[in-house]
């Protein structure tokens, strides 16, 4: 890596090799394992992160969530999801 990744609607986010996603039965939530770190994800973040698999653009990912949670405006979902994923990207836990 040599440049900061800035996520846009066209980015195809995925987890880097050192970050491993799995559901943890003991804690009953999705977690990301990373060196010296464990991110425990709440229910919503868990939903989002499962779609971060290197096949969907951010735009498609937001569409899918918007279809599923049709009470929330798409723009709000887009903003929250982008913020969450950019935050993980800045820490090196999401790449594109």
């Amino acid at each position, binding site marked *: *890596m*040599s*440049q*900061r*990744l800035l996520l846009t609607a066209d980015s195809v986010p995925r987890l*880097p*090799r*050192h970050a*491993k996603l*799995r559901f*943890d*039965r*003991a*804690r009953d939530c999705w*977690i990301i*394992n*990373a*060196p*010296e*770190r*464990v*991110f*425990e994800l*709440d229910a919503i973040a868990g939903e989002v992160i499962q779609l971060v698999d290197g096949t969907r653009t951010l735009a498609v990912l937001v569409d899918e969530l918007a279809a599923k949670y049709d009470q929330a405006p798409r723009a709000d979902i887009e903003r929250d999801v982008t913020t969450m994923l950019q935050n993980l*990207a*800045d*820490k*090196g836990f999401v790449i594109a």
Partner: protein
Amino acid sequence: MTDQADVSLGAPTEDAAGPSGSRSRLIPYAVLCELTHRCPLQCPYCSNPLELERASREIDTDTWKSVLSQAVDMGILQAHFSGGEPTVRKDLEQLVEHAAKAGLYTNLITSGVLLTRARLDRLRDAGLDHVQVSFQDTEAGNADRIAGFRGHAKKQETARMVRAADLPLTVNAVMHRQNLHHLEAMIAMAVELDAERLEVAQVQYYGWALKNRQAFLPTREQLDEATQIVEEARVRLKGILAIDYVVPDYYARRPKSCMGGWGRQFLNITPAGKVLPCHAAESLDFLEFENVTERPLAWIWEHSSAFNRFRGTDWMPEPCRSCDRREIDWGGCRCQAFALTGDPDTTDPACEFAPHRQVLEMPVGEAGGEIPEFVYRRIGNG
């Protein structure tokens, strides 16, 4: 290698919810497997105990496998393979494979001096998730002097092999008075080696490091400069290199949450199979530690006297007992409190409210004075 990095193992950051105090049973996050105390290096800050365990006392492959399986059943998420130098063990691949198959996140903590590309490939294929290579400095001469071993060039080669094998890399650098002036270069080296992460670790003063404190303790000026360098680099390298950095205890106003609290998140298993709440816990020589060859790991975690001795807040004296940070830093490090005051139940002197805070005045006052020779980590030198 077992260097200072280990203190944050398994401790979730502010991003994570962390184990809630209300949970009736605490679920540990990580197990540190110290496979051996054998190591070609002799770092004078090594966190291994002064009494090094000999090869003949090491537990065997099947015992380690059983420990790893038990860890998964307890809800442990990560297994860190450390030492000594863990690659000395010929069964490392088997253990990594066993852990990875069982669903553990696997991390190899190594000095890098014994690794070949073929072995790295085997470890990767066995399911290894991450490699951490330690560096003593950026300059070969000084690095090799600190390690008591000519290994710097090989370490750089290993770090490159790790990336060539498509494994993620953390550069671990223990920084102190005799190499802090190369911090900027260390950050550049981590970027150049294509590391994901740089851990700027501080020397923790117990065991070997306490013997060498005068040789390692930086001055306040050195430290302030380092903090500024890290802050600038973090902004500049956002999304490129993650930098972990903590201010050393002697200059902090509050202690760190050692191991995320005693017996809350973490277990350490010694080469001989003893189970410790932290890698330095054997320095608390009045504690008795259970062994995985005699008891189930879950029993040791829940019921052993060593794990319960400082668990939670009941053991705390004032000022911790009535302090609103008592479940944030858990009163600081027990090993440090004991090493510096002789009283394991007192507030860590790293806290400015500690009754024994003045024990830091002498070493801090003398920081920057004459640099003594190292006492190297080797059997017989403890």
